[in-house]
């Protein structure tokens, strides 16, 4: 046994020494790399700002290393930009080495390289990257598909709505990423969302209606109103939330009816939506709910009353049967 232990000890000693050396080298390399990158960022930042302000910039003026850093900096800025500024960033990247390299890296062996490339392509804003990104939605790795969906949203590529919805349905892309991409796409995603609202999965129906609330308009109100009658409470609650944003002539009566839903969180969402719409007609029912319903709808109803009519709230809170929610809403409203 002792020789085996001695051998193990020697192996462990060697491993410990290797780790120590790696730690030292890693620290030196990282420190040097970080310093160089920071210096390069300092050098190219004025160029990036000039470019965004509309000055022409020849790519050949920069050494290849600085071009990569400039691409990083512009990519970061591009996330905050819209309109002509965003278009200028796209113009810079169109036909650039950075674009070509990122497109090549979509075929890299390592998933993180493919995901990074897909992500960068979205920041570059070049429509030319869209076909490759659409193909990347079928990548074998979830993070690559997620980065591709996000970038297609940023590119506002109209043809991406259907593939992204399909990726959402099959679970190939995380819910949040797919939802955010569809929101970025905006109204062009509405037809696909209408179709998704008829899916057999209640979770997907709820997601579709919630997204319609974000990207749709009053023309989509009838669908949301129909969804208030869905067998699934999650879908009804999402429909109430959507109607709070898109409104429409049939929204208010449908939401008033939803105040009598048998599921408490649907009543809560309906109350919140009515508070956002602001009509005084549902006040009596909202006050009734605020006085005697379960916690969540009662709080939502009291807050809705506060939004619709602070005066009515103050009066109701003085009543002996007002209850804690109306008291709370009145005190908060008075601050």
């Amino acid at each position, binding site marked *: *046994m*002792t020789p085996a*232990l*001695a051998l*193990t*000890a020697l192996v*462990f*000693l060697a*491993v*410990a020494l290797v*780790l*120590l050396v*790696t*730690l030292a080298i*890693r*620290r030196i390399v*990282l*420190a040097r790399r970080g310093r160089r990158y920071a210096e390069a960022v300092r050098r190219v930042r004025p160029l990036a700002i000039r470019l965004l302000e509309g000055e022409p910039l020849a790519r050949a003026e920069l050494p290849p290393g600085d071009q990569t850093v400039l691409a990083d900096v512009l990519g970061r800025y591009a*996330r*905050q930009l819209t309109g002509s500024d965003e278009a200028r960033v796209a113009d810079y990247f169109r036909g650039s080495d950075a674009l070509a390299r990122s497109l090549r890296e979509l075929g890299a062996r390592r998933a*993180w390289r493919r*995901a*990074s490339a*897909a*992500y960068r392509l979205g920041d570059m804003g070049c429509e030319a990257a869209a076909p490759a990104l659409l193909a990347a939605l079928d990548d074998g790795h979830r*993070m690559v598909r*997620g*980065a591709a969906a*996000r970038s297609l949203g940023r590119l506002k590529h109209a043809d991406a709505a259907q593939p992204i919805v399909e990726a959402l349905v099959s679970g190939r892309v*995380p*819910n*949040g*990423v797919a*939802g*955010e991409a569809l*929101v970025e796409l905006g109204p062009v995603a509405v037809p696909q969302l209408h179709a998704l609202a008829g899916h057999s999965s209640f*979770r997907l129906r709820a997601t579709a209606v919630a997204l319609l609330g*974000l990207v749709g308009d009053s023309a989509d109100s009838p669908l949301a109103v129909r969804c208030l009658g869905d067998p699934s409470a999650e879908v009804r609650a999402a429909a109430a939330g959507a109607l709070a944003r898109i409104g429409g002539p049939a929204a208010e009566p449908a939401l008033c009816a939803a105040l009598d839903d048998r599921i408490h969180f649907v009543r809560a969402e309906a109350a919140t939506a009515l508070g956002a719409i602001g009509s005084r007609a549902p006040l009596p029912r909202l006050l009734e709910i605020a006085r005697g319903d379960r*916690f969540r709808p*009662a*709080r939502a109803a*009291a807050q809705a009353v506060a939004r619709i009519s602070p005066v009515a709230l103050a009066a109701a809170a003085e009543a002996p049967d007002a*209850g*804690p*929610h109306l*008291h*709370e809403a*009145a*005190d*908060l409203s008075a*601050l």
Partner: protein
Amino acid sequence: MSIVQALLWVFSWLAFAYFIVYGVCQITFTIIAWRTLNRYRHAAAFTPLDEVYASPFTPPVSIVLPAYNEEAGVVASVHSLLDLRYPRHEVVVVNDGSTDGTIHRLREAFDLVPVRAALRTRIPTAPVRGAFVSRTHPNLRLLDKENGGKADALNAGINASAHAYVCAIDADAVLEQDSLLRIILPFVDDPDLVAAAGGIVRVANGAVIESGRLVDFRLPAGRIARFQILEYYRAFLIGRLGFDSANAVLIISGAFGLFKREIVEAVGGYALGTVGEDAELVARLQGHLREQGEPFRIRFIPNPVCWTEAPADVRTLSRQRRRWQRGLGETLWRHRRQICNPRAGAFGLFTLPYFLVFELLGAVIEALGIPVVLIAWAIGALSVSFFLWFLAVSVLLAVIVSLSALLLEEYADRRYERGRDMARLVVCALTENLGYTQLTAYFRCCGFVDLLRGRHDWGVMTRQGLEPPAEVPLPQRRARA
């Protein structure tokens, strides 16, 4: 063979088997941690926090901060929480019957005024005496309740929270600016799957903190705190990532954890009568969610960072470790039916036995080793060369794990930029087994004894404070002046 020799023989083989299994676990955890942290490091390049911040899918979060006699630092803590980079969050401070000026300092600093509040009653708590809302920060609320302990205060905060996600944090903890955005990511990606998540806790001793934000990362001057930095690296960067990979996390630190409120309510909130309420809650969630039969995840995420003050002296360290040991023992006892239960999945078959053998009983085995070696040597039953090689292997394994943790930190986060600081941590890794490990093993043994004796109190944590107390005088003092 005499009885003593037979006992020594049994113990030495048990210790040997213990060491082998422990070593295999540590090496496996380290390999998993390498892979996972590598993934996180690369993913940082395409994790758009700006977009998460702006996304309509990022849900609002209620942060619950229990405070008992925290007048020295509570104002700074609340300021740092209010300043967190997050689209919609509220801060619910629960004054748990403090006997100092906690409530006065908060009221003055944030212009808190009394309101009539509607509180849920699903989780019973000690009576709430009053509620306050800030006129300057509408997303800050204060509950004033009778003393009921930390778990009770957290439960009261959960009852008062307005949002569906609740983040529990310690009053002395400092969250990094984007830590909430980072910890919410798995919930945004898989809202139906993820039930709870914990972030990484780091030792703040020595760091420079201004207005509730860490502005400079430095090593503490004291050795005790430095050794703990290394311990935290090992526990979080290696241990918890390993358990996370099997969806078998037991501990989401009380210093920083995010939960779906509905699920916490469904299991009855934090348990009273235990000093390990954080692990106990996670164990109950694991059991409850497995019983429901729906897929779920309880996550450990290594990049949302929470900084906390570690004990800087031996006495405080002793109290903390004894309390942790008791808390772990109480949790394992309460959930003994899940231990080695196939229905509890990897959590029951691996995590709980691991904590039972290596964390709870491990201290006793380690402490027993010293007298056993001495007895064996005295009666001539000790093979000195075997013992010395065994000692060398076990110390080297510990050194390898510690160096791996340092290297992982270097790859993943690299907070201590000064080369001198990293060199000091390497020295800690090399010297930890020359006294510190034995000291903490002794404290854990004492905690085990406390557990057997049924001790329930929290003990006093002496804190030096992470930054100077806020300059808000108490009303009485001002009146006297």
